[in-house]
């Protein structure tokens, strides 16, 4: 196979006020026509900068200062021409613009922000055609609709005139892909194309990229930190660390015989389903942390673990009105409220970690907000049990709620927006104490220092502002803040999904240790099954506002019974080339819609499906116990 793109000794550096900073140095790799190469690495490894250099999209202070990028594409330089050295082209030049979006195109991580919210997706897709093909508007529209159909839009003609925010995350990414592929490029650069998506959607998008690759015969450069995605997609792997290439080779070799210590460490930092009980993740940089005396006191004062639930959620329902389905002239009477949380009940026992899994939009975050009383449900009750005293949180007045708020705390998903950038870490950590009037200034200062030690941060950093911390460090500040009030129950809403794999392992280990040391109870919400499998004792699977299956951790993933859980488990990419995703078995977005569930899980009639107990704490939503429990999906 001919080499399509040949990157030789590429060096990119950023011109910063403190001098030149090398982001990428001496990077070389080749991409053959029609093949897939993956660049793996954590953030800051230079993988995205490499991609930006290939497409001439480097931010202003960055420039290529050595090496060449040879693009050997017949359509770009004619049959006899020599390969074009992209590194020598002016990124603003007409010649480069002819390649960009035409012969090389790119898809990005976040499908919402990478599409303009003010223009219809049809407008944005056909734009590339109008630029690069001498197509008129009608032709461009026809070709775009054609492409929308290819990427799996159910109604491409209607989709042409929709705005990005009217689409689900998966469809948005499909729109993005059709935009990148509409000119039939020779090379597609995919920058974390599935990271922001749910597992089931991720599997579909990966399948789509593979299908389109075969269809159009293009090469793919995949940039990702997810080794599972790499194992399933790539022919060759390039491992980047600190702007340099650590190791490269065929996917099989890389996974079976990793040589470089960095790669070995990376493989150990990823949670996977085959972990033994009690096996710990090994983060690249372990953090040391300790609980001080003030915190130890609070552990001693806690009631012992018991069978009694600390939190009982009973029959919670919540619906929202949705205006997006409303046409310009429909009256408000036609709006149907959507049931976001539908009759959900579960218990969390003291000292356990209950994992709550489900795709975005299934109502898991709404549920956690209901428990925090930041949203009021339509009906149901949330009973919090404190030293044998049961309180229904939903019927407490705002004043009576204040002491309870000390017992339940929240860790947020986004470590960037959940910390006030104008407050120092000291202010952030002592604010909960100030709000609840706990201790005097000396006590607070001492306690805050202890909190910093608890999450493995240097207490000397207390006067810094959040922006001087990395994402993982910020998340640790967020964790410390949630522990400032010595809570019993901590709600963790996707606390690691915004973090790198290596940092993710750090945070997961920290959360695990804190739970053990301080006797905490977690409700751990995540869409990442492997993460939940690593940290949770029991797991509840949520779909379309309902809990469809609850089981102890080892039971759920080894023996999933509900079709939705099975679809979820089947869609998780394993970091192992010998264990590929079964793309053929993927059902198009049907697993998450109750109407498509087979007997006995689907709705027989209008009556609600009950949760049945199948023994060993395994609950499942079905009309009768499934006969084929344990069999393949």
């Amino acid at each position: 196979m001919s080499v399509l793109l040949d990157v030789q000794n590429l060096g990119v550096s950023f011109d910063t006020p403190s001098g030149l900073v090398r982001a990428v140095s001496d990077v070389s790799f080749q991409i053959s026509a029609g093949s897939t190469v993956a660049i793996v690495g954590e953030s800051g490894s230079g993988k995205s900068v490499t991609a930006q250099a290939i497409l001439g999209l480097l931010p202003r202070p960055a420039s290529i200062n050595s090496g060449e990028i040879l693009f050997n594409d017949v359509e770009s330089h004619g049959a006899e021409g020599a390969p074009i050295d992209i590194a020598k082209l002016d990124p603003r030049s007409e010649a480069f613009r002819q390649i960009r979006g035409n012969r090389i195109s790119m898809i990005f991580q976040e499908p919402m922000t990478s599409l303009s919210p003010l223009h219809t997706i049809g407008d944005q897709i056909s734009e590339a055609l109008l630029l690069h093909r001498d197509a008129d508007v009608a032709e461009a529209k026809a070709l775009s609709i054609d492409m929308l159909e290819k990427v799996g839009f159910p109604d491409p003609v209607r989709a042409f005139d929709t705005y990005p925010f009217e689409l689900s995350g998966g469809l948005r990414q499909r729109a993005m892909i059709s935009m990148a592929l509409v000119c039939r490029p020779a090379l597609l650069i995919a920058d974390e194309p599935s990271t922001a998506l749910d597992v089931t959607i991720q599997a579909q998008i990966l399948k789509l990229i593979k299908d389109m690759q075969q269809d159009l015969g293009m090469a793919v450069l995949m940039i990702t930190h997810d080794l599972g995605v790499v194992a399933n997609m790539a022919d060759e792997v390039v491992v980047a660390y600190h702007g340099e290439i650590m190791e490269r080779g065929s996917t099989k070799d890389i996974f079976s015989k990793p040589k470089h210590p960095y790669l070995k460490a990376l493989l150990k930092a990823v949670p996977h389903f085959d972990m033994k009980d009690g096996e710990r993740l090994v983060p690249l940089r372990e953090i040391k942390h300790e609980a001080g005396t003030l915190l130890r006191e609070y552990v001693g004062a806690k009631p012992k673990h018991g069978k009694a639930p600390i939190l009982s959620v009973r029959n919670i329902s919540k619906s929202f009105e949705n205006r997006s389905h409303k046409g310009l002239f429909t009256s408000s009477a036609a709006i149907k409220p959507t049931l976001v949380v539908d009759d959900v009940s579960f218990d969390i026992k003291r000292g356990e970690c209950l994992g709550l899994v489900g795709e975005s939009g299934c109502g898991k975050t709404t549920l956690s907000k209901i428990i925090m009383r930041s949203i009021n449900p339509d009906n149901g009750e949330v009973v919090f049990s404190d030293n044998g005293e049961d309180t229904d949180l939903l019927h407490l007045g705002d004043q009576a709620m204040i002491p309870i708020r000390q017992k339940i705390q929240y860790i947020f998903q986004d470590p960037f927006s959940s910390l006030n950038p104008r407050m120092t870490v000291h202010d952030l950590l002592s604010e909960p104490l100030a709000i609840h009037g706990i201790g005097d200034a000396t006590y607070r200062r001492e306690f805050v220092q202890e909190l910093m030690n608890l999450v493995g941060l240097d207490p000397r950093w207390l006067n810094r502002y959040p922006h001087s911390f990395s994402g993982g460090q910020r998340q640790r500040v967020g964790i410390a803040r949630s522990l400032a009030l010595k809570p019993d129950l901590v709600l963790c809403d996707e606390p690691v999904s915004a973090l790198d794999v290596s940092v993710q392992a750090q945070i997961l280990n920290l959360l695990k240790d804190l739970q053990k040391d301080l006797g905490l109870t977690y409700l751990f919400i995540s869409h990442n099954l492997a993460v939940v499998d690593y940290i949770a004792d029991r797991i509840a699977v949520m779909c379309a506002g309902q809990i469809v299956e609850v089981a102890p951790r080892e039971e759920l993933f080894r023996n999933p019974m509900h079709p939705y859980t099975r679809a979820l488990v089947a869609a998780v990419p394993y970091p192992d080339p010998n264990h590929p995703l079964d793309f053929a078995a993927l059902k198009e977005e049907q697993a998450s819609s109750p109407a498509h569930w087979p007997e006995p899980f689907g709705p027989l009639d209008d009556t609600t499906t009950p949760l049945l107990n199948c023994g060993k704490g395994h609950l499942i939503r079905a009309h009768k116990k499934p006969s084929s429990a344990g069999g393949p999906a």
Partner: protein
Amino acid sequence: MLEYLIRRVFSMMLTLAAISVLVFIIIQLPPGDYLSTYIAELQSQGEMVDEEKIEFLRRQYGLDKSMPEQYFTWVFGLLQGDLGYSFEYNLPVNEVVGDRLFLSMVLNFATIIFIYMVSFPIGVYSATHQYSWGDHGLTLIGFLGLATPNFLLALVLLYFANVWFGTSIGGLMDPQYLDQPWTIDKAWSVAAHLWVPVVVIGTSGTAGMIRRLRANLLDELHKQYVVTGRAKGLSPGKLLIKYPLRMALNPFIADIGNLLPQVVSGSVIVSSVMSLPTTGPMLLGALQSQDMYLAGSFLIFLAMLTVVGMFVSDVLLTVLDPRIRLTGSTRA
């Protein structure tokens, strides 16, 4: 949509009614009324005050009636287009305001257009060439404009306009056209006088506008969809206009509500200094002398412009931004 419009118009009327009550109360708040101010003025000039005449005037103007009665008389008059009677000018308010309203609209519209024409190109340039010499230089000039007191600049410009072009000092037209019917020559004279106040008032506005546009656009320029556009192979100019600039405009459309009343009432100080026949100084005078109906009419008119401006900008935003048109807040 129609339902929404009707609901909005209805709530606008309620708002205006509430404002009219407030305006009336605030004007009446200081002790005394126009006549007591008038008496004090006469006495300070050593003139005799004829008690009977005052009593007559008081009855004539309806000042002896109760507050609610006065209020309703005023409001019903307003609804029929009768703005009341100005004590100070001894004329119906309609006639007092007449030309001034038109001239101040001309002046302020010209100013707004001047501000937009100057600050848009500069703002876009500053944002796209952030931290370049051009950015710093233009920003500096903008700040100079913001920091220079308007009346000072006004005096300087008036002087040079007079020395170089022979334009008469002050006013919006040559003295011989005052109170004359409109002719081509009069309009020409207005145009010749207009540019000085436009530049004076405009310079202070451009700096703020440049900074705002620069900040808005800078925010947008770093968004991911701009990179997507570049990755598509769009040329920089096309990209800028189609995506980030379009997004950066929203705050300016939302600002129309504040702009409209400014068109009528803005620039009081400059107008006083340059003795411009606009409404600003007149409103100031009316408030000082408790010329109730004149001040009230002005304030109500400004309130109406604000409310209408808000309505216009809301409707425009709905039309221009699909996110506002198609999604709504979910009521929790």
